[in-house]
């Protein structure tokens, strides 16, 4: 899905360069140290917490799709799901049940895409 980016750090660095924001200025704007951001960009350290990811999204003027990509990459780096999802899943038992059902029935991408398209159609 995110084959164009090797990892979370590369995504952040490329978007920052596209926006012509020097590393230290970017670090100041999201409230972390320049060495920490540098380590993140070079894939040496884990992504920051969700509040900082929201700030990064704002500073880099990410679209909704780009923000989703960033969160997916952040989850992958942490060997976990995207950090915006655990809260949603934990607050809704039926989501966990649906995910387990999909897993047990080996639901594929086509089936999930159809489900998502149906949801979008119903919600406008």
């Amino acid at each position, binding site marked *: 899905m995110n084959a164009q980016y090797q990892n979370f750090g590369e995504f952040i*660095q490329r978007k920052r*360069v596209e926006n*012509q924001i*020097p*590393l*230290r*200025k970017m670090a100041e704007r999201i409230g972390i*140290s*320049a*060495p920490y951001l*540098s380590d993140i960009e*070079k894939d*040496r350290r884990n992504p920051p917490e969700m509040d900082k990811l929201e700030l990064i999204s704002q500073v880099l003027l990410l679209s909704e799709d780009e923000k989703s990509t960033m969160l997916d990459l952040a989850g992958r780096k942490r060997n976990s799901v995207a950090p915006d999802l655990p809260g949603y899943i934990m607050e809704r038992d039926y989501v966990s049940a649906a995910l387990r059902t999909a897993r047990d029935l080996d639901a594929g991408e086509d089936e999930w895409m159809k489900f998502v398209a149906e949801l979008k159609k119903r919600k406008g």
Partner: protein
Amino acid sequence: MYKPSYRTQKNGVPVLKKEEIDAIGEAYVQDFQPEVLRNPAPVDIEGFIECYLGMTTDYQYLSHNGIYLCMTVFNDTDKVVVWSPDTNRAEYVSAKARTVIVDNRLLEESQQHRYRFTLGHEGGATTSSTRSSSTTTQTRCRSLAHRWPP
């Protein structure tokens, strides 16, 4: 982007008079941030290094005692020696070509003047070494070359 022209030795080392270095520096500023030549103001040195020259910055402890202020990596390498305060010993990190690694100590508020001068110095080294760096992996700059005020 401005491209200076100058004589070089057979090994690619530029041959420049002091006045020529000044003129090249001014031409870069004229191209990158011309307004500061009319209304003196600090040059956006990080913008010059990262956005204009297209270099990558990194921040590490380059030594245990601060003797090295910065270094430029000319070719991709995974053998940059840095000092780790966590383990109190030297370790390797990787860096891509055209990376400027600044010593973390220069990020302290009291070191901002050295930080700016150091970035400018590395930018100058990079713009004048593009033809002579094919076999050089990295260069380090010691603090004595940057002491300010002199």
